[in-house]
């Protein structure tokens, strides 16, 4: 693995929000991802790039508490005590996933309830945590819909009446409404046309900066990585082959595979 300069030390909060050590996931003989370690600080956006099948999504699933890794540990410092997310009971992990984390799926259908209105989708996390005031929930939902640029008049429409880009924005609102500290995004712009992608990226960038979120974004689109992320990890065949600051990795790729990747980007 090639490592660029040392990671930025954040002055205000020296403790990383997420510490990943030696995470490996095997599918029988095959490697899903192997020996991945990194730290993620609050307010930082980490990109994971690599070709299809390189283990990006596997790694994300391990980090997000969906798939238990075969080796390694994931420490989350959401509260006063660091929490090894795979040693706590599943109940606690699910509670974390609903409150302190958010997961934005590549396909909005995986992250949304398609037969529940937009307002209900956004409000679900609020109701999960015990909000029982209809008017207040609706107000929050309207606020978040406007933040992701969905017209308030469409609050009672169902997601299947929305375009793909709107569904994706709705999914983001649904995740962010509970003000999570950490967001996992799996190809958030996949399957969208370029202009919609651009708007969505713009929105994500604003939201991430405004809310001081830490985010891990899996993508195979280097442009997305360049635009959104502070740091980059390049994966190939389940291994991290290179990591460093995004601009360094993309402008001065060390590993042969990264060089291949950056040179393969079409420039119009």
């Amino acid at each position, binding site marked *: 693995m090639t490592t660029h300069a040392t990671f930025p030390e954040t002055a205000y909060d020296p403790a990383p929000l997420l510490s990943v050590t030696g995470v490996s996931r095997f599918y029988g003989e095959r490697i899903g991802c192997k020996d991945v370690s990194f730290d993620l600080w609050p307010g930082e956006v980490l990109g994971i790039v690599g070709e299809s099948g390189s283990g990006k999504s596997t790694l994300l699933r391990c980090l997000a508490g969906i798939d238990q890794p075969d080796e390694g540990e994931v420490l989350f410092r959401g509260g006063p005590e660091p929490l090894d997310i795979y040693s706590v009971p599943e109940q606690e992990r*699910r509670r974390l996933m*609903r409150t302190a984390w958010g997961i934005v799926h590549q396909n909005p259908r995986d992250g949304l309830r398609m037969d529940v209105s937009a307002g209900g989708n956004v409000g*679900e996390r609020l109701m999960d945590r015990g909000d029982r*005031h209809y008017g207040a929930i609706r107000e929050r939902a309207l606020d978040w819909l406007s933040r992701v640029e969905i017209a308030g008049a469409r609050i009672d429409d169902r997601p299947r009446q929305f375009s793909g880009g709107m569904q994706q924005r709705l999914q983001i609102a649904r995740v962010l409404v509970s003000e999570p500290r950490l967001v996992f995004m799996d190809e958030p712009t996949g399957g969208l046309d370029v202009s919609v992608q651009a708007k969505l990226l713009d929105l994500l960038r604003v939201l991430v900066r405004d809310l001081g979120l830490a985010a891990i974004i899996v993508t195979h689109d280097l442009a997305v990585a360049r635009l959104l992320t502070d740091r980059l990890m390049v994966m190939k065949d389940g291994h991290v082959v290179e990591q460093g600051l995004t601009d360094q990795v993309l402008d001065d790729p060390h590993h042969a595979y990264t060089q291949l990747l950056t040179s393969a980007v079409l420039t119009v």
Partner: protein
Amino acid sequence: MNAQQTWPADDASPAYNYAYLDEQTKRMIRRALLKAVAVPGYQVPFGSREMPLARGWGTGGIQVTAAIIGPDDTLKVIDQGADDTTNAVSIRRFFEKTADARTTEATAEATIIQTRHRIPEAPLRAGQIMVYQVPQPEPLRKLEPREAETRKMHAWAEYGLMQVKLYENIARFGEVTTTYDYPVMINGRYIMAPSPIPKFDNPKMHMSPALQLFGAGREKRIYALPPHTSVRSLDFEDHPFRIQSWSAPCALCAATDSYLDEVVIDDQGARMFVCSDSHHCETRRAQGHRGTMLGDAATSGLVDPSPSAVIPGDRRETRDPFRNPTEQGSGMDPGSALRSARDDDAKVEAGAKS
């Protein structure tokens, strides 16, 4: 509830075991019942048996009743509040035949009340057992199709999703439109489907002195509410739970506090409201209560015309002029309350109110 283990010895042909089910099955069901009572609102799986009627016709309730009934019990069976519908009559006859049970239509006399979709209007008392027939025991099923997931949600009380359903109702219709099988929180812990009783009946479950047992035969689940258990219907702070109310009293017995069925009585859009609890309605009529559309009590055959059942100054006299003699023909069927009410009284003016 004292189980008699065998059919009385002098019976000539014990074609079935007492109360139809074999003793092992009854023990299995009783164990499930005990567990269900110990954890109010928790759905206990049980080995549901084939019964001599189709799944979905009350096999869960019948199995529960069969497991708890004894020769000392008096059984009442209601279907949508009525004692005289096919399902209720058949189930009653089934237990008369197989369990030697006394049966009744009077709520107060019954020790076991098997019900489909209603709780009797008369208040229940300690020592009585309600047995509900449940088609879908899982209140979260329509929201979350995965059984493994709903069990986790129950185990960890992750009930936000249920609230989403209510939210959807209010967002779309301005109020919670669920009127039956309205989800309830049991003992502050489990969300439970109260079976498809109208939400009108939900408050009756709260702190009821009677034991309430729920059997879902097709879904193979049993759950229970011990006496004096809190039952809270879910709602929002700014949209509190409300039960149904009607603008008119019962057309036959003038009750204003009972659950009313709406009955269309002609093809002109005319309709009447009558108590869904047939025994409650009959009792009130026997006590002398008269609804606006109740015909001549004696000719309709609905009430005992004995003097004790007729209040002084019976309105029958005053109502006779309104009635069209050609319509109250002798060919009228005295059996059905609704039918006779329609035949007699559809033309009675609304002003003839008791």
